[in-house]
Structures are given as C-alpha cells and as structure tokens.
C-alpha cells in the first residue's frame, strides 16, 4: 500500500477507518481536535459527532460499544477530567464492541492550563494505555487498541502528546476491516453498575489486569533493540525518538504499552545493560515501575530529566551536561508576539468596556481568554471550562457573608456555555446569586479552529441541525427574566447594559452576539481610515488591542487596510470623530444582519 505523510491526528483517523470503527465522538481541544475533523473524511462508514462536552462524548461512545459497534472518543488531556466519571465506570463495564479512548496530553502547555500526565488515569482505572511514538504507530495503535479492547473486554486508552499529534511522518496505509454488525443485547450484570453488580465487575477488572500484564510482556510493539554498549534506554512515546538521537549506541526498550508494565520483559532487558536511562514525557510512570521491578539497578530518570515542559534531544543532552546551551542571541531586544483577538473580533468592544468601567471579569476557556492580555487586561481569573460562572458565585457569596460586594462579571463563550456553563448558571439562579454572566456568542467554537457546536445550526457531518438559542434557553428554560441580547459591535449599547446590570440586585445574563469574524474570511469589507487632521494622538483606539491599529511616524493612529474588517468599533471609541469608513458605500461587516448570518448566510 501507499505511504503518506500524516500528522499523528490524521494517522489516528486513518487507523480508526482501517480498524472498522463506526462511531466517533469528541469535544474539540488542542492538540486533539483534528482527529475527528479527519475522521469525517470517512463519514460514509463512520458516524462522527461533537459532544457538548467530553463526558457526553465518552458516554455516547460507550453506548455505541454496547451494541457491538467499534467506537472511538477523543479529547485533550484536561477533557478527560470532565469525562472521568464515565471513564472509570467504563473500565468496570468493559467493551462489547471495541472502545478506544484518545487522550492528547500537552506537555509544555502550548495551549492548555496544565500539563497533567493522563497515563495516571489508566493506572487509576486499571485500564491498558498505549503510547505511540510517531504517526505510523498512531495508526497501528488504533488497530491494536481495537484488538486488545475486544480480546480483553476492556476500554483502551491511547495517550498522545503534542508532538505525536502535530508532527508528520510517513504512514503505510492498509485496507479497512469489516466491522461486526451492531445489535443491542441486554447485559444487566455488566452494564448496570448497581453495587451488587459492580462488586463482581471489580473482581473481573483485577483478573483482567493480571492477564494484560502478561500480554504486555509479549506485545509486539514493546520492543528491545540491540545496542553496542551496556547502556540501556527505557522509553515511551515520542521520547523514544529523542533518545535514539542522543544515545546511538545504547540498547533500547521501547514501550508502546507502558501500562500494565511488562515486568518480565523489562527484567530481561535490565540484565543486558549496566545502567538504564528512562525517557518519558511528564511524570515518572514507567520509571516508577522499572525501579520496583529492579531495585538494585542504576536507573536515571526524573531525578535528572525535567518534570516540567516537553522532552527533546536538547533537554536530554542539557540534563546530562552533554551540550552547551548558551544561546547565540540573548533575545532581550526581541519584542514578543503574543496571540491577540483578531481585527474585527466581536469580543473586543466588550473587553474595552470592562476597562472603561474598571470591572474585572471571571474568565473562561476560549479565544476570549485573550482579553486577559495587554492592552485589554480585563480578565483576572481563568480556571477551567465553565468556571467563570461558578467562581463568580463563590466570590460573591464569600464577600456577601462579610457584608461586602464587588463589581465583577463572568465571561464565557457559546461553546463553553454549552460544555459546562449551564449548570453553573443554575447554581446562580438557585442560590440567590446577584451577579451578571456575559455570554460571548460568536456561533462557533473558534479557538480550536471553528468547530460546529449546538448553537451553530450544523453538525460535524455537515448536516443542518436545530440551533439552540442561548437567550431563549436562559430566559424561557431557566426562567431568568433579566436576559438581554446585544450586538458585539455596539460599544455604547454594551456599556449601558453592563452599567445597568452591574447595579441590579438580581442575577442577569447578557448575550453578546456577532459571528466570529474569521467566518467571513473570504469577504472583502470596506476598511476604516483615519483623518490625520482630526486625530489628536490620544491613543484611545490603541487600547482596543486591535491588530489593525498602530501609530505612524507622526504618532497619529494608522489603520492597516489589509487587516481591517471595518467593524467600526474604533470609530465609536474615538471622541474626535477621526475614524470613519474608507468607503461609505461599504460593504460593511456591521451592516450584515445577525439573523441572515445565523440562518445560513455564512460566507
């Protein structure tokens, strides 16, 4: 078969296709998002869908497995925290059709709030975990996971990391296996985890783990490769690749199935060498098992290699004093290039207003987290998905007990609100909260690259879907009468609403609506322009943090016409009427009606 250069995520999708997976679900999150986006290339044979969150996605995959269908669910590492409840139950229940769970960990936190090592979850749930070292193995491990899952009656975790997800290497493609015909048959003792049943299932899990440990010793992808010196390297995941560059003459034991740890295989390996370096990303997991297996052996692991950040050949060399890491340039004079809200972003006017009103926001996870950065600097907390609303309530209640109040709002995006904001809002309403929740509804999951969500009106498979109207859900569903909608480009209307709702002694919700500006990527809008005569160099427009606005050599504001989308927000904040449309006739992005967009006017 042909060889293709695939990213690890594309290879997972390809593996799913070849392994006869017929159901796939996920909630988008870097670095895992492209797995499902690539699986829909095979949508004639695989049903793929975005869940509202990782928990719903995992439960749906488990349900699919109940029918004998082969199912896959993918998420970023912190997503598994959300899905931890069904994850642990699934371990007891086992798998009728294969259940493959992908966790994409993010060592180095390129786009995450922590760098947890999700192999711990496999150990805690007594479930096998596979760890591919490149794209070929990413494809291979999905096929192996399906086999292991159905042979041992267990869900299987595949732990990817940023570099296995987002690096490309050659993959040999294969044919698709014919999947089993799905059929729902009741299995009360296994699937109804009443305590009486669950106790028996726990015993089965312990038995399964013993069998898997023996299997791990003989697993064809746990490989010893011969070296020239009596130095050993025990490695898993992409760290194996780094190790091969640093130790060309060493013996290697590469573990694609690190847990259950292959104790007997490892002991045989240990006898071949005098000392062993252990290379793995994040925590000392295989290292801990290795130390237990051979207490007398010299083992070099996280006592020398860093626990923080990504591994690389340089990290290994630097840790061992093998490389001079003195930089060629100290970098002090190089200004940073932090990400920012886009030119024309419909969140900008809101964050600018928070600055004007001197209100800090309790933030959440999405593009709008960038409202925390200079010059907007309007968000001082960001904890996890949905925590904007609940943290807000906790702060309010703790201060209230001491007779104090604080000016604060919660800020959450549409997708994050569907993910886990609704329950927090229920808490506010139920517990007599008085604060204001701002929902920035841009109709798409933008940060991860524009995935559809329950508010988008489309599914992952491209089907039309009923669009859940957030304001209606809150006003009519939760009964919160103080629910208001406002246009994201209307600076004054947003400010007036915020002022009013901050004073209200009752809870309220403001839905700020305007589609993500990048959805209009192909459109050409008339940009804004600055009248240099009128511009007083007050620099108020620069406080918007719009990437299209800078200063010219005379210190007057300057608009980059190539970037400007003509949203008109800068014109509204200019007290000297120095900014206006370059062409009055348009077309102007802010004159496109929201409704026309939401009913399919996407360009």
């Amino acid at each position, binding site marked *: 078969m042909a060889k293709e250069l695939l990213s690890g995520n594309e290879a997972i999708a390809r593996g799913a296709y070849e392994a006869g997976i017929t159901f796939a679900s996920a909630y988008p999150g870097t670095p895992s998002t492209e797995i499902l986006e690539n699986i829909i290339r095979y949508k004639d044979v695989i049903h793929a869908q975005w869940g509202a969150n990782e928990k719903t996605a995992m439960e749906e995959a488990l349900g699919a497995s109940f029918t004998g269908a082969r199912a896959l669910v993918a998420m970023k590492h912190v997503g598994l925290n959300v899905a931890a409840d069904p994850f642990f139950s699934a371990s007891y229940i086992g798998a009728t059709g294969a259940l493959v769970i992908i966790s994409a960990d993010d060592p180095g936190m390129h786009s995450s709030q922590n760098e947890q090592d999700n192999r711990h979850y496999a150990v805690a749930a007594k479930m096998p975990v596979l760890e591919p070292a490149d794209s070929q193995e990413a494809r291979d491990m999905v096929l192996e996971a399906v086999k292991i899952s159905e042979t041992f009656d267990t869900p299987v975790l595949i732990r990817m990391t940023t570099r296995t997800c987002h690096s*490309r290497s050659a993959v040999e493609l294969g044919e698709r296996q014919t999947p089993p015909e799905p059929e729902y048959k009741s299995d009360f003792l296994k699937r109804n985890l009443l305590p009486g049943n669950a106790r028996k299932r726990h015993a089965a899990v312990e038995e399964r783990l013993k069998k898997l440990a023996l299997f791990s010793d003989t697993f064809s992808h746990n490989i010893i490769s011969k070296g020239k010196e009596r130095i050993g390297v025990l490695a898993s995941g992409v760290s194996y*690749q780094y190790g091969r560059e640093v130790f060309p003459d060493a013996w290697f034991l590469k573990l694609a199935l690190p847990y259950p740890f292959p104790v007997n295989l490892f002991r045989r390996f240990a006898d071949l060498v005098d000392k062993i370096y252990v290379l793995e990303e994040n925590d000392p997991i295989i290292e801990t098992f290795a130390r237990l297996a051979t207490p007398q052996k010299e083992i070099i692991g996280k006592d020398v290699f860093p626990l923080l950040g990504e591994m*690389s050949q340089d990290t290994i060399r630097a840790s061992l004093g093998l490389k001079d890491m003195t930089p*060629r340039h100290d970098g002090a004079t190089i200004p940073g290039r*932090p990400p*920012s809200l886009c030119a024309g972003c419909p969140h900008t006017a809101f964050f600018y207003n928070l600055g004007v009103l001197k209100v800090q926001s309790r933030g959440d996870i999405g593009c709008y987290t960038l409202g925390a950065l200079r010059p907007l600097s309007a968000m001082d907390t960001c904890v996890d998905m949905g925590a904007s609303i609940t943290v807000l309530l906790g702060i309010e209640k703790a201060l209230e007990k001491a007779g104090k109040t604080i000016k604060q709002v919660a800020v959450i995006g549409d997708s994050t609100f569907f993910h886990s904001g609704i329950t927090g809002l229920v808490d506010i309403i139920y517990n007599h909260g008085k604060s204001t929740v701002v929902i920035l509804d841009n109709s798409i999951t933008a940060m991860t*690259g524009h995935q559809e969500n329950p508010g988008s009106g489309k599914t992952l498979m491209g089907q039309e879907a009923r669009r859940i109207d957030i304001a209606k859900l809150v006003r009519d569903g939760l009964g919160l009468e103080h629910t208001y909608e406002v246009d994201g480009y209307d600076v004054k209307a947003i400010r007036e609403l915020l002022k009013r709702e901050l004073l209200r002694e009752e809870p309220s919700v403001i839905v700020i609506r305007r589609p993500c500006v990048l959805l209009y990527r192909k459109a050409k809008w008339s940009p804004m322009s600055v009248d240099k005569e009128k511009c007083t160099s007050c620099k108020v427009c620069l406080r918007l943090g719009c990437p299209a606005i800078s200063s010219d050599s005379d210190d007057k504001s300057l608009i980059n016409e190539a970037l400007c989308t003509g949203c008109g927000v800068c014109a509204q904040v200019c007290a000297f009427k120095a900014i206006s449309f370059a062409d009055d006739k348009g077309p102007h992005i802010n004159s496109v009606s929201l409704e026309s967009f939401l009913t399919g006017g996407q360009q």
Partner: protein
Amino acid sequence: MKTKSILICGVGGQGILTASDLLSDVLLLAGFQVKKSEVHGMSQRGGDVISTVRYGDQVFSPLPALKEIDYILAFEKLEALRNINYLSEKGKILVNDFEWQPLPVAAGLEKYPADTIEQLQKLAAELVVIPATRLANELGNEKVSNVILIGLLASRMDIDKKLWLEVVAKKVPPRFIDLNLKAFECGYNFKP
C-alpha cells in the same frame, strides 16, 4: 547521510504550515525519510508560528536541536531573529523583507529592532533577503508569498526542480495552479 533540518517561521496566517507541508512532500518524493513538526492552537491568533522539517536516511526526532538548523526560511524579519538560536554555525537564512509589527509594538509598548537585518547578517553564514510579499502583490495575490519563499529555498537545495513543480501543482486548488507555479518560478529565479 546526516540528518538535515529546515525551520520555517513567521506570523499566523502567512501560510507557513502549507509551505512546510509542501517542502515535506517534496522530500518524501525525493526518497528521504521526513519528519515535520508544527505548533497549533493559540499561535494561530496573530502569534508567531514555527514549523520544522528534518530529513535524511533515518530521522528519529521531529524536533530540531538548538544550533542544528541548516536553513531558516523566515516569512517575517523579526521571526528569523526570534529563532536564530536554532541556526547552526554554518546555517543560512532566507528572509522575506517584510515587517509585521507585533501588537505590543503597534500599541507603543515595545520597540521593533531597527537593525534586524544587520543582526541576522552577523549571525548567518549566508543571508538572502527577498521582498516576497511585494513580489506576491505584483503577481496579484499576497497569499502566494509562501510559495515564492519555497521557490527560493528550492533554488538552494539539491532536489530535482520537477518534483517541486509537481507537488506545488498537486497541493493547491486547481484554479490557483498557474499563479502558484508563477510564484514558485519567481522565487526560484530570484537574484539578490
């Protein structure tokens, strides 16, 4: 053969990942083992973007080591400087003569170094400055600056030109093939 490596850098939205895909496909077609790395996520929102390609007889790590890179292909001047620590002592820099102010600079909080090109000159074994953005605009579409830069890189590498043209034609949408082939030639034939 010893593993070689190329680093492509610039600002999100400049077509860096397409360029590194193109390069890796050519190298695969030329019979090398290829590994490519890239960064996604937050960096797509106007942040800096890096993609690296390593190739040779047998390549293990997808990531380059510091002071190892043979070529830096920079879509923006400051980004070449930002990644200079990856460049080997004998490494060369091909840089787009293009300045894109980072937001802190545009907002007046920091300064863009005026001597970026001079600094690069001192640190590179060879520096080629090409006005790829201007040339792309002259061809009628700023977006093809990435293919112009790939063309320039191709002119320095010992790989059959036919392979490059084949991959460019395969990689872009049919109605843009002619434009992209022109862009490739423009970079390939560029004389500093």
